[in-house]
Each structure stands twice: as structure tokens, then as C-alpha cells.
């Protein structure tokens, strides 16, 4: 289990990174935390010809408030984001989900942006990005474009990212004051990818739901927004029955692929439970059960 040979490009600035990526085109691959890419290379399931190592791009290591948003640069490590005050106060859903991503030694290297760029359908962070209505900045030599996380994920390990492009930033709108949130998942072991998970944010107006965002993780080709469940909750004061109904709707059209840890039916069942539990917890928090 040794990786195949590649050519290595260490870059120090964003400009340098995109210049090299531009030159390499299809052959270039970004190396961020390496926590997904290097294991694949060790199995020789990935054999990139060129790696562009962005770890030395200091200007992309930030975790900061920017224009009312939480902005994370491409090399902001998962562990540092989870510990950073702006993230803890602004996007508690992200911080909660990070607790489910692998283990601290992996989070010390792995980046939030890298996880999103990798677009593993079982990963937590893409669902969180969609649930939070995050947006991404994709930068190439030609310039930058912003895309909504919602649009970014096309399928398993497939995104809008074009050859030569680097995801330079992800921006999360801060959680609305008084809003509730929850990331809930079921995994076989502590730190494993989920069998199914749910990311939920809820804003209340009085006891009525003013805004709901429900996104499922690990049960489809990409993060799946449960819009029918969201619609059901809007304007309602959810009780257990309505929440169960929302969970039912959230999984109504799911057709998750099977693997050795769970078949299609089983994953749907687990997803239903996770959605129900996540909505319940988010509501509790919105009702003051667990204030920041």
C-alpha cells in the first residue's frame, strides 16, 4: 500500500496555486489535508499525475467574520474551525457536525473545504453546508465565481468544480438569533462515516416554525434537502406527531445505495429516525433548551 509516483508542486499563494492548476488542467489535483486523498492513493485507487499542495498557502488558513458571514479559507483545518470562536458562536451546527467527522488527529489535518470539495455523499460537512445555505468561492486563473453549496454537489465525488479551479473559501451565514440546530447521525463506530445523518436548522416565530432547513446525509448521491418536510413544518407548531410526519416525508423518495453496513430499506429507516431526532433536538434548542 504505497502510492504511485507523482509530481509534487508546493505553492505559497492562491495566485500561484491557480496558475499551476491552470497549467496542469485535468492532470492536476489539489492536496489539502490529504485525509481522503492520501488513503485513496495508498490503495492506488487514486493515481494523480500531479499534486498541488496548498498547505503552504498561509493566506487561505483563516476562520473569520466577513461581511456578516463566517468565512473559512481552503486550508482551515477541521479541528481549528471547531475550536474557533467565530465558528462556535455563528454556526453551531457546523461545530456539532465536526464532532462526528473522524477523530482529532484526522481533523488536525483535514480541512472543511477539502471535505466539501471531496463531495463524499456520506460525509457530514457537505450536508451541513447545504443545510446552512453556505456558498463557495471557486477560483481559477480567469477569476472567481460564487456558487451555492446547494448547487455545488452533483453526485458522489462529483461537483461543479472545473479543471484548474480551486475552492478558496466557504461562507456560512450565521445562525439566526434564537434559531435551533441539530446534527444527528447513526454510525457503526465512534468517528465513522454515518449510516444516515440529518442536519437541521429551525427558526421560530413564537411557537411557529418561521424557517426550516433539513438536509440528509449518507442516503443519496449527494446531500439531500428534504423540502417537503420543510414545507410541512413551516408555519406550524410542531408536536411529536408532526415531526414524525415530517421525518416520513423526508425519506419518502429516498433510494440510498446498499453497502455492507446497511441496505436500502435499513438506511431509509435509520434516516427517518435521524430526521425525527434532529428536528426534535433543534426544536428543543430553539425553545431555549440549549442556548449558546
Amino acid at each position, binding site marked *: 500500500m*504505497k502510492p504511485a509516483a507523482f509530481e509534487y508542486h508546493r505553492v505559497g499563494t492562491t495566485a500561484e496555486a491557480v496558475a499551476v492548476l491552470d497549467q496542469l488542467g485535468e492532470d492536476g489535483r489539489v492536496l489539502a489535508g490529504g485525509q481522503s486523498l492520501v488513503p485513496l492513493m495508498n490503495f492506488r485507487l487514486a493515481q494523480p499525475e500531479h499534486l498541488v499542495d496548498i498547505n503552504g498557502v498561509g493566506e487561505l488558513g483563516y476562520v473569520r467574520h466577513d461581511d456578516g458571514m463566517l468565512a473559512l479559507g481552503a486550508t482551515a483545518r477541521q479541528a481549528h474551525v471547531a475550536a474557533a470562536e467565530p465558528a462556535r458562536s455563528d454556526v453551531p451546527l457546523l461545530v456539532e457536525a465536526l464532532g462526528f467527522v473522524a477523530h482529532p*488527529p484526522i481533523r488536525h489535518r483535514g480541512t472543511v473545504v477539502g471535505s466539501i470539495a471531496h463531495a463524499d455523499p456520506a460525509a457530514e460537512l457537505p450536508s451541513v453546508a447545504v443545510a446552512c445555505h453556505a456558498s463557495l468561492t471557486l477560483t481559477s486563473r480567469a477569476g472567481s465565481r460564487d456558487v451555492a453549496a446547494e448547487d455545488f454537489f452533483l453526485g458522489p465525488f462529483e461537483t461543479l468544480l472545473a479543471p484548474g479551479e480551486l475552492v478558496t473559501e466557504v461562507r456560512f451565514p450565521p445562525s439566526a438569533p434564537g434559531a435551533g440546530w441539530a446534527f444527528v447521525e447513526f454510525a457503526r463506530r465512534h468517528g465513522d462515516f454515518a449510516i444516515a445523518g440529518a442536519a437541521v436548522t429551525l427558526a421560530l416565530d413564537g411557537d411557529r416554525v418561521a424557517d426550516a432547513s433539513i438536509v440528509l446525509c449518507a442516503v443519496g448521491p449527494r446531500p439531500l434537502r428534504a423540502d417537503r418536510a420543510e414545507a410541512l413544518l413551516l408555519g406550524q407548531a410542531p408536536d411529536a406527531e408532526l415531526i414524525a410526519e415530517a421525518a416520513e416525508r423526508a425519506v419518502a423518495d429516498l433510494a440510498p445505495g446498499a453497502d455492507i453496513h446497511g441496505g436500502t430499506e435499513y438506511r431509509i429507516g435509520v434516516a427517518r429516525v435521524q430526521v425525527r431526532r434532529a428536528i426534535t433536538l433543534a426544536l428543543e434548542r430553539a425553545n431555549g433548551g440549549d442556548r449558546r
Partner: protein
Amino acid sequence: MTASASNAQTLPITVTVNGRAYELALEPRKLLADVLRQDLGLTGLNIGCAHGVCGSCTILLDGETVRSCTLFGVQADGAEITTIEGVAPSFEELHPVQEAFWAQQGLQCGYCTPGMVLRTIELLRENPDPTREQAREAIASNLCRCTGYQFIVDAVIDAAARLRSAAQQEEPDESRS
């Protein structure tokens, strides 16, 4: 497909390992774990799975635990690394965390031990007085196939007490009883 070693690129790096600076010329694909084990002879870390799961290859990179099997050696340019060989203060003495693992029999085959000791050092720096549950969660990043973890948890708790009392009294830790 794959280029072979003879025509491969090599890159110079400087890296400080256990307080000593090294200058190396490395093939980029060489895993940091192999660089430490083969080029520097630091075979304390072990490669148990080579895909980041088991944690036997754990090192401290700029003070933080990482898997050295998911990093390339060239990425360590300019870094400071501590491996298990750099933990004990001298040939005669063990680090209090190592002492605690010994006293509690927090190891059996010793293969996961370097990683477990380094994780414990890191945990106790962040949280000098962890509960058993916190200790468990912290070491859950690393697999141990022998111990069932309980004596490792004992060792973490014991180590915490040793480090706290050492910090309070600035006394050398207790020797073999």
C-alpha cells in the same frame, strides 16, 4: 501510469525531529511514516493500516497528533516533529505518561503504544484532569487490538495525576515501585 523511482523527482527538505534538524532529499510520494522509519531509523511508529484508521503511525507534527501514513515526507518541510523516541527525558527516565502506561499495564503488544502515548500527552495538555469518559473518547482515535482499552484509560488517568503533581511540586515523578 506510474513513473518508477529512477527518473522520479526528489525534493530537498529540512525538518526537525525530536529536537534534531535533518536535511533530506525525498521522492515526493514517500510517506512521512516511511521517511521517519527508513530514512531516520525511527521505527517506533508503526504502519498498521496505511489508510489513516488505526493510528499506529501517530506522531506530533508541530505539536499536534497526526497520522504519518496520510502525509508525504515532503510536506514536513520546515516542521517540528516529535516521535515516541523523543518523549522520554533520558535513557534512564521515562516520561510520566510512559511511567503510567507501565504501572497500569496499559499496553500488551506495544504496537499501538507510541500512538496512545502521544495522544495521551496531547490530551493532558488540553485537559489536565480528564474524566474516564473523556479519556476514552480521546484515545478512541487510535485502535488497540490487545487491551480492550480499560488499562489504557487507567494509564491516562494515572498519567494525569502524575503530571498534575509534578506540575505542583516540581518533583521528579515516582520511580519504579
